[in-house]
């Protein structure tokens, strides 16, 4: 019995009137944890009761602490009839279980009712006393930190990245149980909310166990999702990346200033192509018939390989392949001691009982690490191969035994295997920026996974627990990192790594191809890197990750979207699944073509943060691909777009073509201006690539044939008799061009991207506005063609964007970052689009180099800081030259000094207090409400995150039976989203935080029945609660640093 949970109910305010006669309420509170319930006294006749209760104490298992939420119910006492519930508050105790997170939950929390929404607030105090020391807790997984952030959290440094963790739990959905027929909607909603809260807790605990077993202490990039499978059940699943994180104590920070250069080292790619994988499995892509199908890649890197013939690979082989590069690294990283030291007190024994038997797959699993991270410490990412993705169509059946969710497990296992094999085909040993999603319609479910194939620097992944031996690994499901064997084998090797420094400079290493140029997995045009001129690079690069900090970008980036609608016949079961399965490859292909064309239209050559969502409805499929396009200086300039006509017989037709061509050329020129893309004119070198890279233009082509034709541009220019030309439909092609050109230009002063930050913008101000916008369109005409649907869908997205720009016009100049679109087909003929993003304003004035470095720090260099810290510890490294490569390197060096020195001055007070002379007057009720910032990004510009307080993961259901009275569907959803935001803010504030970073709304399921005047909505949100402090703009004097830092940490502790 390792923990005592204590709760105190202080007061309530703004309670609803429950007694019509007196216009007052006789409120009391029930506090429940597990099966224990306490009650406060009734505070009669008040809307602002002061209970000031004693401390209610619950003595509980740590397992329960992790799984169960504290449930607070506010009721109205009624002498004669049953007490009426006013509403509930669920409090997740988890943040209190880690010594590094929050210590107390204290503050005003909204009282929530699933029918009435927020009904007043309650002030509570919650604490946890842990009796034993942390080591014993490892039997449960208390103390494992969770982060939604998909990069290494600021104020931590990564000692080791252990690898992929996943878990899923299933249960029956209370909404579909027989009892639901006789209970009230409120009871049903509450049962669901409570169940999901329990399941999330359980899931988190189980993942925590896996992390502990791997020797880690944290999960980064934690992504939890719900699958509401209806009749067949409720699945809660999560993936993440297990890491060993060390807290950066602010006191050590100043050290970095003395070691500013050291971090330049690891940016380098260790190796030449010589040691890259000669992937033997580059087959001609064929469409697979199987439901777990994948599609063959359209031109270039977005690439999935047929699952029908997964390349047979031996687990050990890739390791040895990699060894030549990894072993050299090893010599540079004398952190073995630290690594194993990080997992002190690891006890593998008791874990066995808690593990499921997956020993046979363990070997395979560890071979290819999968990472949910999208942002990495410099040097982590060696090469990037391209996007790998897999989709699989499944038929849902009832989950018979919730304790054995093997079917769902097997499905995902299959998908991940496939992802791994795709990565391998690209010559990569890892997948980064990995995510999974589902789309469910009736009994059909599309499972999707995507990531970016990459080569990683194994230094970060070395088993932290080499000493704990193999038995441990065999037990674990994802013991992980593949490099163990090879590293062990080759041990201490030379320091030749330094010699590679010049071979691949830091800023371009990641774009160099990981695959063998003579045996490429797919045809691509290779050139020598425009930056270092030594290594080969592809002409276009697609990735799901964020733009690496060290990448050199010309001009600015922009959001690029491809949208697609496909009708399908209504069908049932197997037939339905097959027809969807058959449609998917074509959709992906078309989306890819669109992306490619739009990218070229903007004169860009790389996509980051690519996310392709395919949603299934009863009679249509929606596809939406979003990414941020940039011009990577290291890649060749993209060619223009050339239109090829069918048969040049008709003069007017020719003319039409040429006007089109002119419009396209004009647009490209305009875009170059807009995004400030003026790459230096390079002298083209013909390199020894098997494919001539002189081809400066790619054709706008439309083809439903296999994409292996991507090189047929050459053929095209010769004669138009090539296979895919036959299928060019003139009107279709025209449509395509039209749609290409109809993307409305972004209004002046706005930029947009779906990555963490906009490449090319650095001087952010603190102006910040996170928002969610939801739209539902009803298609009035049932017999729409694909073209018609496409147009509607495109207009919908474009108009939504336009509305956002208009709405946020007061923030100009500003950039919409992390624009995240989610599409769904909630019902036949309905299309739902939800967008969450953050608008951040920036200073317009011309940026100076120093400026750039300084502000950039707030965005991206935290990793660099951490990294250099790490290097400080290893004083073995001699450093060379920051001068050779002026890109990135001195920049980040400067950043260090400025960041560290400037960050300490600010007060941790949330902004917004004492704003005006009248504020005292306007806030008579004591302390003002803490301003809580929310952002989908992992940072807040101009601030420094000093503490992570824990993960916020909340699930709410709201239902109404008086839809009209609540302002219709829009009014209903508007107030519900506002309520969700309010509850998130209140919980962050109660943890002592002033911001929520890495916020995301994972689920927004809206159902309506206007005829019955009813609607229901489910929302799931998550993020990391943090305390940030504002950075002052001025540079502090370095000598003062230490003292100031210590004092500021003291202050932080009390915040």
């Amino acid at each position: 019995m390792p923990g005592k949970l204590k709760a105190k109910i202080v007061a309530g305010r703004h309670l609803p009137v429950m007694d019509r006669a007196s216009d007052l309420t006789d409120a009391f509170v029930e506090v429940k944890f597990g099966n224990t319930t306490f009650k406060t006294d009734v505070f009669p006749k008040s809307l602002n009761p002061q209970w000031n209760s004693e401390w209610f104490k619950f003595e509980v298992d740590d397992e329960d602490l992790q799984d169960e939420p504290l449930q607070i119910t506010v009721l109205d006492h009624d002498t004669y009839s049953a007490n009426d519930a006013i509403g509930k508050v669920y409090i997740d105790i988890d943040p209190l279980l880690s010594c590094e997170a929050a210590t107390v939950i204290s503050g005003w929390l909204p009282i929530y009712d699933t029918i009435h929404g927020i009904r007043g607030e309650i002030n509570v105090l919650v604490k946890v006393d842990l009796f034993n020391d942390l080591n014993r807790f490892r039997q449960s997984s208390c103390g494992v930190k969770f982060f939604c952030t998909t990069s290494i959290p600021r104020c931590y440094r990564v000692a080791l990245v252990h690898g992929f963790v996943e878990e899923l739990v299933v249960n029956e959905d209370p909404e579909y149980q027989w009892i639901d027929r006789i209970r009230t909607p409120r009871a049903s909603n509450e049962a669901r909310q409570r169940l999901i809260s329990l399941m999330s807790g359980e899931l988190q605990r189980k993942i925590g166990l896996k992390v502990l077993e791997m020797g880690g202490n944290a999960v980064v990039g934690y992504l939890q999702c719900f699958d509401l499978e209806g009749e067949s059940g409720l699945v809660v699943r999560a993936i993440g990346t297990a890491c060993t994180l060390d807290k950066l104590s602010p006191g050590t920070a100043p050290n970095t200033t003395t070691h500013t250069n050291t971090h330049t080292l690891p940016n380098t790619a260790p190796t030449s192509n010589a040691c890259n994988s000669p992937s033997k499995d580059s087959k001609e892509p064929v469409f697979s018939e199987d439901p777990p199908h994948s599609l063959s890649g359209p031109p270039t890197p977005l690439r999935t390989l047929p699952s029908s013939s997964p390349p047979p690979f031996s687990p050990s082989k890739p390791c040895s392949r990699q060894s030549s590069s990894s072993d050299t690294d090893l010599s540079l990283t004398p952190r073995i001691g630290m690594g194993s030291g990080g997992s002190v007190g690891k006890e593998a024994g008791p874990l066995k009982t808690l593990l499921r038997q997956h020993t046979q797959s363990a070997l395979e699993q560890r071979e290819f690490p999968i990472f949910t991270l999208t942002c990495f410490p410099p040097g982590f990412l060696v090469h990037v191969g391209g996007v790998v993705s897999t989709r699989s169509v499944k038929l849902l059946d009832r989950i018979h035994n919730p304790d054995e969710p093997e079917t769902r497990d097997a499905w995902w296992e299959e998908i991940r295997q496939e992802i791994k094999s795709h990565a391998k085909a690209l010559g990569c040993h890892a997948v980064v920026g990995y995510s999974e999603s589902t789309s469910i319609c009736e009994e059909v479910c599309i499972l999707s996974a995507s990531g970016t194939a990459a080569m990683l620097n194994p230094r970060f992944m070395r088993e932290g627990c080499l000493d704990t031996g193999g038995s441990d690994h065999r037990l674990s499901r994802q013991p992980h990192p593949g490099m163990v064997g090879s590293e062990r084998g080759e041990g201490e090797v030379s320091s030749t790594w330094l010699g590679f420094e010049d071979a691949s400079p830091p800023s371009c290493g990641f774009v160099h191809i990981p695959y063998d140029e003579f045996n490429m997995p797919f045809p691509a045009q290779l050139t020598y890197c425009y930056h270092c001129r030594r290594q080969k690079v592809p002409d276009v690069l697609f990735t799901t990750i964020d733009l690496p900090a060290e990448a050199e970008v010309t001009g600015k980036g922009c959001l690029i979207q491809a949208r697609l609608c496909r009708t399908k016949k209504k069908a049932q079961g197997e037939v339905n699944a097959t027809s969807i399965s058959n449609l998917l490859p074509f959709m992906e292909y078309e989306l890819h073509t669109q992306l490619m064309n739009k990218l070229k239209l903007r004169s860009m050559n790389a996509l980051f943060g690519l996310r392709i969502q395919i949603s299934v409805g009863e009679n249509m499929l929606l596809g939406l691909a979003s990414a941020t396009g940039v011009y990577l200086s290291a890649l060749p300039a993209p060619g223009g777009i050339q239109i090829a006509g069918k048969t040049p017989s008709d003069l007017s037709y020719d003319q039409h073509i040429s006007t089109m061509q002119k419009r396209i050329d004009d647009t490209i020129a305009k875009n170059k201006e807009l995004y400030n893309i003026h790459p230096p004119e390079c002298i083209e070198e013909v390199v020894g690539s098997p494919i001539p890279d002189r081809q400066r233009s790619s054709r706008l082509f439309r083809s439903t044939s296999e994409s292996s034709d991507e090189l047929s541009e050459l053929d095209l220019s010769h004669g138009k008799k090539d296979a895919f030309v036959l299928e060019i439909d003139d009107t279709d092609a025209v449509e395509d061009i039209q749609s290409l050109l109809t993307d409305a230009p972004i209004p002046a002063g706005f930029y947009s991207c779906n990555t963490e930050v906009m490449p090319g913008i650095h001087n952010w101000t603190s102006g910040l506005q996170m928002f969610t916008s939801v739209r539902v369109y009803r298609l009035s005409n049932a017999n729409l063609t694909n073209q018609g649907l496409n147009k509607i869908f495109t207009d919908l997205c474009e108009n939504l964007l336009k509305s956002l720009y208009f709405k946020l016009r007061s923030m100009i100049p500003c950039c919409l970052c992390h624009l995240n679109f989610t599409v769904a087909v909630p019902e036949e003929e309905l299309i739902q689009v939800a967008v969450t993003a953050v608008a951040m304003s920036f200073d317009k004035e011309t940026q100076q180099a120093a400026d750039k470095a300084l502000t950039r720090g707030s965005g991206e260099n935290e990793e660099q800081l951490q990294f250099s810290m790490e290097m400080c510890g290893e004083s073995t490294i001699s450093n060379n030259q920051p001068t050779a490569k002026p890109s990135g390197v001195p920049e980040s060096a400067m950043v260090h000094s400025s960041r560290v020195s400037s960050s300490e001055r600010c007060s941790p007070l949330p902004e917004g207090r004492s704003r005006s002379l009248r504020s005292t007057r306007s806030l008579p009720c004591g302390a003002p409400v803490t301003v809580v910032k929310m952002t989908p990004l992992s940072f807040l510009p101009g601030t420094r995150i000093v503490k992570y307080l824990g993960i916020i993961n909340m699930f709410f259901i709201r239902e109404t039976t008086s839809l009209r009275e609540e302002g219709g569907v829009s009014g209903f959803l508007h107030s519900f989203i506002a309520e969700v935001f309010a509850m998130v803010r209140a919980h962050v504030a109660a943890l002592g935080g002033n911001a929520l970073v890495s916020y995301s709304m994972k689920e927004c399921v809206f159902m309506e029945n206007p005829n019955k005047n009813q609607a229901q909505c489910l929302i799931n949100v998550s993020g990391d609660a943090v305390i940030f402090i504002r950075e002052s703009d001025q540079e502090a004097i370095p000598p003062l640093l230490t003292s100031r830092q210590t004092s500021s940490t003291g202050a932080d502790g009390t915040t």
Partner: protein
Amino acid sequence: MSMELDVFVGNTTIMDMEVYQLWLDGLTVSDAVKVRMDEGALLECEANPEVLTSDTMDQFRTFQMCERLLHSPTKLGSQLLYQIPAQNQIILIERYYEFDSVFAREVLGKKLSKGTKKDLDDTSCKTGITLKSCRRQFDNFKRVFKVVEELKGPLVENIQRHFLLSDTLARDYAAIVFFANSRFETGKRKLQYLSFQDFAFCAGQLISYWTIGAMGAPTVPDSMMEDMDVDLEKEFLNELKDLKVLVNDKDMMDQHKILVCAALRGKIKVYKLMEVNFKNLSRALINLASKLTHTKDVRDLFIDLVEKFIEPCRYDRWTVAEITLFLTHYTNAAHCLGTFRHQMIWDRYMGVIKSCILQMYHE
């Protein structure tokens, strides 16, 4: 194809203050869109009518959802539902409680009852203010009235504390509450020329000098007396009867006239007329004072002032400066009357009367 649902929710609630004004003015969404288009909103951010309509609807919905909170502004600061920056909260409240003086003039002194509310469509037609806006303003009056009616302490401060209004706006509301409470007659044709500001000024004078709270603070230790600002001080009104001596005592009246005439000779153009009318004017002011013990006569204070004093003067074409001089010397001269013992009451009475008359003396 139709938009079924369209919402935008920001972590910080976005409020366009121009749209807020249109909402407060009671415009429909389509009218508001028209106004915004006329004002050139389409030129911003490459908007189109669709975007503008969506934005306007969204803003209107936001305001509507916040309206509940604006009814008790103190809640706005402590509520958690909408994160609104403090300075925006102040603007929201202030604008919500701002009113059209034309409208306020219409309901001034009327009972803030359901009956009056029903007549609002007439008021709406007459003033050109939308019915929706009229209702909001009327409800605001009524809400403020109800809250402060039962409170003790200074009126303006109470309004400020409970509704977080600016000083000027709180004073205007104090005037409205004061008029509604005492039900002063303001509707007569002869009073039509007076604006809301005229009455608000007079109300301010009455509150400042004629209520218990006004003079009472030093004398009454517990200044939190009930209705101290809303009702005129009974005792004072009774004492006003003593002023009658100024017209009843013939000697005193003559003496008074002589003193005033001496002071004004050669200084005003209407001297002759003044000399002739002095007794009438004096009698009018004194009689007014002595009658104020009756509620009915209190209500008629303004109409009496106009009929008995302002109109005769206007007939004789007095200028404002002349009236100022006359009233100043008329007041001061009484101090020189050896037998007149009610100096304090006299000053308290005449101070207010003088400033009210000066405020009201215009076309």
